[in-house]
């Protein structure tokens, strides 16, 4: 393993410490904040992708890092297996692109004195997601979840506009109790096992003691992470927060933050509680039903929106439902689909919000109607949106198609035809709301008084959007690069 051994901790701590340096820069050298942040995130990204050389989806092939050299049940362990690495690479690359995008956008939306705080929080958010995903200890997961939560509340409010502050406060008012529920769940889990390490917990839970307490802790976990992940009945904060936040932050929140929470659920389901089979099978049915309702509800609401970012936000509710539904089906194909959808969702939703941000930056257009005829002046932005939309609908050869295929395959293989139908209806809804926007952009004449003069978005904003949308295309057409390994990783999770 050599130097690779230390990569996980560096991936997490380098952005974390860079974030801490920002206030010191704030007085004289605020211009340096963004390049410094980009350098830190690039370092993490490079290290993450280097890890693919040593981590493969096999039962004994993961990187376990013992902080301070203490063995797992006593010390804290960072554990990167293939599924975790997959998630880490999504987080790193999407965050880096959003950071690059921020440079132009933030100079317009955020007042200069606050830019250092923005970049600091941005890095904290990314680092917290990385730490949250990589950790092998439930309490450590809670700590990173809090960094994640606090930085995202503040980033929603960073513009200081009335509605932004209110949206952030709503987010906090739902998010903080959910954090407490997670803490309560951890306390309950600890009370019945006496350990905090995930792998150790799995062994201890297999003994089957205090099953009621364990079950209750799983329920609290699902409720807590459900709010963070915006699972259907707990999604109330999402549309406001995601649509009002600055667009790169919307992309981060929608593409990554909710995803990370779902990933935590996946970890808990399979890595921690997997042994306590009664608890998991009892809750997975309920999770499936609510997730299915979320797919339909989010889709219908997205169809009905007039505000562009609001539509994307509801689409996120729907797609998080896709992933949660995949998790609840509990077989290899569906789980592969869910994992791959994490990637697809990060890329496609990120691209959506970045495109929406380009329209806001250039024209301050937020309503879907205002996008009529947009392709005349901003063809590249519109095209990036269109490509990502194909992925959201799930049309071959995009990555959305791959994940949808696996998800439906899984539900058919698991005998859950109803869920397969839910996926199909979800796709119809996605087609309705995405194709309407594409139709407006490309085939309708602009409304009078709009789209006269002006031009394309700046290169620094176009490049991230295009990288993401091409990403959906490439990760679809060239899925064979990784899909086999993702499938093995899914099989491993189930075992």
């Amino acid at each position, binding site marked *: 393993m050599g130097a690779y051994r*230390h990569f996980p*901790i560096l991936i997490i*701590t380098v952005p*974390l*410490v860079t*974030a*801490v*340096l*920002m*206030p*010191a820069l*704030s*007085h004289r050298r605020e211009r340096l904040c963004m390049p410094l942040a980009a350098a830190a995130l690039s370092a993490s990204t490079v290290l993450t992708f280097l890890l693919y050389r040593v981590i493969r989806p096999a039962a004994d092939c993961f990187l376990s*890092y*013992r*902080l*301070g*050299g*203490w063995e797992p*049940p*006593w*010390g*804290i362990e960072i554990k990167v297996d293939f599924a975790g690495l997959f998630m880490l690479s999504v987080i790193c690359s999407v965050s880096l692109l959003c950071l690059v995008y921020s440079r132009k956008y933030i100079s317009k939306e955020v*007042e200069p*004195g*606050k830019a250092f*705080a*923005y970049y*600091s*929080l941005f890095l*904290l958010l990314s680092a*917290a997601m990385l730490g949250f995903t990589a950790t092998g*200890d439930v*309490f*450590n997961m809670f*700590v*990173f979840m*809090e*960094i994640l939560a*606090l*930085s995202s*509340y*503040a*980033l929603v*409010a*960073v513009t*200081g506009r009335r509605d932004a502050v209110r949206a*952030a406060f709503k987010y906090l008012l739902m998010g903080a109790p959910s954090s407490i529920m997670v803490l309560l769940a951890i306390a*309950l889990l*600890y*009370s019945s*096992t*006496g*350990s905090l390490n995930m792998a*150790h917990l799995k062994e*201890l839970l297999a003994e089957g*003691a*205090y099953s*009621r*307490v364990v079950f209750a802790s799983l329920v609290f976990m699902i409720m807590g992470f459900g709010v963070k992940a915006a699972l259907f009945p707990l999604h109330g904060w999402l549309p406001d927060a995601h649509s009002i936040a600055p667009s790169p932050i919307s992309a981060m929140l929608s593409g990554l933050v909710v995803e990370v929470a779902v990933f935590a659920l996946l970890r808990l389901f399979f890595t921690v509680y997997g042994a306590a089979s009664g608890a998991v099978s009892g809750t997975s049915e309920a999770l499936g039903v609510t997730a299915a309702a979320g797919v339909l509800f989010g889709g219908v609401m997205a169809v009905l929106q007039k505000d562009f970012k609001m539509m994307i936000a509801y689409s996120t509710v729907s797609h998080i439902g896709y992933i949660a539904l995949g998790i609840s089906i509990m077989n290899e194909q569906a789980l592969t689909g869910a994992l791959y959808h994490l990637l697809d969702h990060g890329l496609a939703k990120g691209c959506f919000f970045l495109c929406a941000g380009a329209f806001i930056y250039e024209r301050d257009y937020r309503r879907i109607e205002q996008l009529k005829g947009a392709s005349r002046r901003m063809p590249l932005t519109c095209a990036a949106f269109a490509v990502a939309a194909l992925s959201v609908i799930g049309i071959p050869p995009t990555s959305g198609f791959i994940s949808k295929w696996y998800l439906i395959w899984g539900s058919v293989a698991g005998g859950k035809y109803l869920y397969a139908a839910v996926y199909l209806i979800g796709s119809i809804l996605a087609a309705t709301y995405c194709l309407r926007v594409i139709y407006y952009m490309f085939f309708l004449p602009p409304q009078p008084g709009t789209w006269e003069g002006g031009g394309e978005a700046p290169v620094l904003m176009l490049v991230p959007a295009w990288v993401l949308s091409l990403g959906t295309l490439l990760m679809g057409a060239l899925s064979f690069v990784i899909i086999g390994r993702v499938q093995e990783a899914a099989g491993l999770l189930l075992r």
Partner: protein
Amino acid sequence: MKKVVSLCFIGALGVLLLMLVSSMPRMGDPGSPTNRRVVDRYLEKAEEETGTENVITGVILNYRGYDTMGEVTVIFTGLAAVLAVLGREKRGRVYAYPDRSPVRSSIIVRSAAGFLLPFIALFSLYTVLHGEISPGGGFQGGAVMAAGMFLFAAAFGLWKAGRTVPPRLRFAVEGAAPITFFLVGVAGLLGGGEFLAYMLPRVSAGLQPALRTWLTLLVEGGIGAGGAMIFISVLMALAREEVGGGQAA
């Protein structure tokens, strides 16, 4: 009606939780999972392995040092969030605090505060430095220090407090805790161990225990200073109002 329904709901939740309580392990039972597993090593070997007599400090800074690094980052995040929401003091801008200067709290308060402040500062230093052998630690000491500053602000006015601990100093020290952690961590990494192993490169094995104690103290100091500054900054950010240019109330 509304109240009744809501009370019923909360009551139902309470009953469920109480039922849960009754099926949890018996409190204080030496044989309960929490007292049976994992904990032995902390109690028996911590002193020798971490060099701290206070096992809690050993757990916080050694066994679960990474958590504590996360924790100091959380509080830094809190500060960054407050600054992102409310903005930062800028040079050349006039800030008014609710108690417009010159503040005149009563002479008794000012005298008492003036008398107490040196002791508070000393106590906080003691708490920080003595954390590894008795109750206390960096974080607690930092909180005491911040409390002293709060008292100062209450007695002599925020404005004066803000001048005593000027923004530039605060911004420089706020990040101290995570940075110390990181530096110590990387030092351990370079010393051939893992991150946060409390080692330094090229230090002979005989010196390791002493080194461990000193590094622990360094981290405690970082946490104390950083924590105190963060608390003060948060206080300043929450309490001030910008005169002119800011958003009107």
